[in-house]
C-alpha cells in the first residue's frame, strides 16, 4: 500500500475510532436511562481502494443496540399483570371492611343484632320497648344493605372514572408509539439504524404495558400493536384512537376503531379497573341483591303468616324494589323496613293471643335456616367476605409473583442490554495505558525520521 492508501486508512480509521469512542461515551452517559439498551459498534472491512486494491482497513457499518426482544416482551407482559393485580387489589380494599363480620354496621353484624333483638322480644312479646328495639334492629339491617350497596356502587363508579382516565393515557401512548414507529420506519428505509427512537419505543411500550395489555408483531411497516383478540391499536404510523362508550349499565366501555375491546383488556391498570368494576364488584352487587331480596322474602313470609300485638294479620316486614322478579338489581339499595311501628311485628301465630310468641320463634329460626341461596344468612355473609378476601389475596399473590418474575427478567435484561461499568472501566484503563505508551513511540519515530531526513540534507545528497 502506498502512502496515500495508508493515510486514507488512517483517516477513515480515525473517524471510526471517534465513533467507537462516542458509543462508549453514550453507553456510560445512559447507564440509568430507562429503555436504553447498550450499544456496540459493528465493524466491517472497508472496500478496497487504490490502484492495487489494497486493503483499506475497517469502517463502522453501524451502531447496534443490544436488545433481547423476548425478554423485553416478557417483562412488559408481567408488568401488565402486576399493574392489573395491584389495581384490582386496591380497588377492592375500600369495600373489604364493609364485609367484615366484626365491623359495626356490616350486613352480618346487623343481621345478628336483628335476630338478637327478636330473641329478646320473644321472652316478652308484648313489651313495646322491645318491639321498638326489634324494629330499630331491622332498620339497621336495611341500612347495612343500603350502605354496602352504595359503597360497591361508588367503587364501581370510581373504577369507571379511572377507566376513562386510563383510556386517555393509553391513547396518548399509542399516538406516540405510532409517531416513533414512523420515524424508525423512515430511518430503516434509508438504511439507517435509529437506536434513540428504538430506545424511546421500548420505554413507551413499557409505559403502555402499565396501562393495558397488548401484543406486538413486527411487520414491514414497523411494529404493529393489537389487542389479544387481534384488534389493531397501532399499525405502522397509524394509531387507532381509543374512545369510551356507555354500556347498558351506564359504565364506559373501551372502543378501538369502532370495535369494543373491553373484554380483551385484562392487563395493566385499565385491566385492573375493568376487572374490579365488571367482575368482582359487579358480582358482589349481584350477590348482595340476592341476599337482600331473599332475606326480606323469608322474613316477610313468616311475618305475614302471624298476627301483630293487636291481633291484626301481619304485613310485610321489609319492602324491596327490584328491576323485575328475575332481575334483582336495586334490591340491596332499596330495601326498607315497611312496618311503621313495633306493634306491627307479628309475634303471635295467626289469630293467636297477644302474648303468643310462636310466630316470632319461627322468625328467629330463620337465622339457622338455609334461606339465602341454600345457606344461612350468617354463612351467606361469610361467603361474601371470603369471596372478596380471596379475590384480594389472589390479586396480591399474583402481583407479588409478577414482581418477582420482573426482577429476574430485569436482571437477565441488564446482563444483555445494560451497560457494564466494570467492562467499560476495564476497557478504558487498557486503552489509556496503550495510548500512553504509543504516544512515546510516536515521538521517537518522529524524532528519528526528522534526524534521518536532516542527515540526508546535510550530507549533500542521498546515497
Amino acid at each position, binding site marked *: 500500500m502506498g*502512502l496515500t492508501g*495508508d*493515510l486514507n*486508512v*488512517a483517516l477513515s*480509521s*480515525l473517524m*471510526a*475510532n*471517534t465513533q*467507537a*469512542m462516542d458509543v462508549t*461515551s453514550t453507553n*456510560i452517559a*445512559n*447507564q*440509568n*436511562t*430507562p429503555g*436504553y*439498551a*447498550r450499544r456496540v459498534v459493528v465493524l466491517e472491512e472497508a472496500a478496497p481502494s487504490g490502484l492495487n486494491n489494497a486493503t483499506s482497513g*475497517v469502517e463502522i457499518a453501524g451502531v447496534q443496540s443490544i436488545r433481547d426482544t423476548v425478554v423485553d416482551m416478557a417483562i412488559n407482559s408481567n408488568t401488565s399483570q402486576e399493574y392489573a393485580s395491584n389495581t384490582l387489589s386496591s380497588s377492592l380494599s375500600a369495600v373489604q371492611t364493609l364485609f367484615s363480620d366484626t365491623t359495626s354496621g356490616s350486613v352480618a353484624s346487623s343481621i345478628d343484632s336483628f335476630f338478637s333483638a327478636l330473641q329478646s322480644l320473644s321472652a316478652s312479646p308484648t313489651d313495646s320497648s322491645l318491639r321498638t328495639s326489634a324494629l330499630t334492629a331491622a332498620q339497621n339491617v336495611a341500612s347495612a344493605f343500603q350502605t354496602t350497596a352504595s359503597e360497591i356502587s361508588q367503587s364501581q363508579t370510581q373504577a369507571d372514572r379511572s377507566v376513562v382516565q386510563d383510556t386517555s393515557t393509553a391513547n396518548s401512548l399509542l399516538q406516540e408509539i405510532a409517531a416513533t414507529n414512523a420515524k424508525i420506519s423512515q430511518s430503516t428505509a434509508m438504511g439507517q439504524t435509529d437506536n434513540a427512537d428504538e430506545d424511546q419505543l421500548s420505554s413507551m411500550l413499557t409505559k403502555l404495558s402499565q396501562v393495558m395489555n397488548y401484543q406486538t408483531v413486527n411487520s414491514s411497516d414497523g411494529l404493529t400493536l393489537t389487542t389479544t383478540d387481534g384488534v389493531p391499536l397501532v399499525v405502522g404510523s397509524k394509531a387507532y384512537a381509543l374512545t369510551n362508550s356507555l354500556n347498558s349499565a351506564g359504565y364506559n366501555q373501551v372502543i378501538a376503531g369502532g370495535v369494543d375491546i373491553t373484554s380483551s383488556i385484562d392487563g395493566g391498570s385499565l385491566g385492573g379497573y375493568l376487572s374490579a368494576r365488571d367482575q368482582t364488584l359487579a358480582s358482589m352487587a349481584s350477590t348482595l341483591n340476592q341476599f337482600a331480596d331473599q332475606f326480606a322474602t323469608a322474613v316477610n313470609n313468616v311475618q305475614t303468616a302471624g298476627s301483630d300485638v293487636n291481633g291484626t294479620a301481619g304485613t310485610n316486614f321489609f319492602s324491596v324494589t327490584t328491576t323485575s322478579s328475575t332481575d334483582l338489581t336495586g334490591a340491596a339499595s332499596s330495601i326498607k323496613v315497611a312496618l311503621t311501628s313495633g306493634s306491627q311485628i307479628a309475634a303471635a301465630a295467626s289469630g293467636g293471643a297477644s302474648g303468643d310468641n310462636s310466630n316470632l320463634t319461627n322468625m328467629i329460626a330463620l337465622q339457622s335456616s338455609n334461606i339465602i341461596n341454600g345457606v344461612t344468612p350468617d354463612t351467606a355473609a361469610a361467603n361474601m367476605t371470603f369471596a372478596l378476601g380471596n379475590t384480594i389475596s389472589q390479586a396480591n399473590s399474583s402481583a407479588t409473583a409478577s414482581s418477582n418474575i420482573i426482577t429476574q427478567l*430485569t*436482571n437477565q*435484561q*441488564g*446482563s444483555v*442490554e*445494560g*451497560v457494564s*461499568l*466494570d467492562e*467499560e*472501566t476495564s*476497557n*478504558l484503563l*487498557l*486503552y489509556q495505558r*496503550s*495510548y*500512553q*505508551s*504509543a*504516544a512515546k*513511540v*510516536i515521538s*521517537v*519515530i*518522529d524524532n*528519528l*525520521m*526528522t534526524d*534521518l*531526513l536532516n*542527515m*540526508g540534507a546535510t*550530507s549533500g545528497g*542521498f*546515497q
Partner: protein
Amino acid sequence: MSSAESGDAQVALLEKLMASVSDAIQAMVEWDVEAFHAAVARQMALCAELNQLSHPPSTGATEAAHRVQQLNRVYQRMVTHSIQWTRTLQSMLPVDSGPESGRNCYRG
C-alpha cells in the same frame, strides 16, 4: 555493509515501521488492545534498529522516511485524540464503585 546494502536495509526497516504503524491504527479501530500493544512493541524494536544505522539515507530511504513521518502524524493525532477521549470517559464514570441500580447499569 556497503552503502547500497545499508540503504536497502534502511528502506526495509522503514517499510516495516510503516506497516507496524498501519497495524497499530487498525488495532485501535478494532479495539484490539493486544494487537495494538504488539504493534507498538514492533515499532520500538524497529526504531532501535534504525538508530544503529548511522549513515545518511538513500533516496529510497528518504522517500520512505517521508511516508513514515506523514503517517506517523496522523497516527499521533489519532492517539492524542484517543487519550483525550479516554480521559473524558474516565471522568464520566462514577467515582464511587458501589453497586448501581437500574437495569441499564450493572457491574460484572
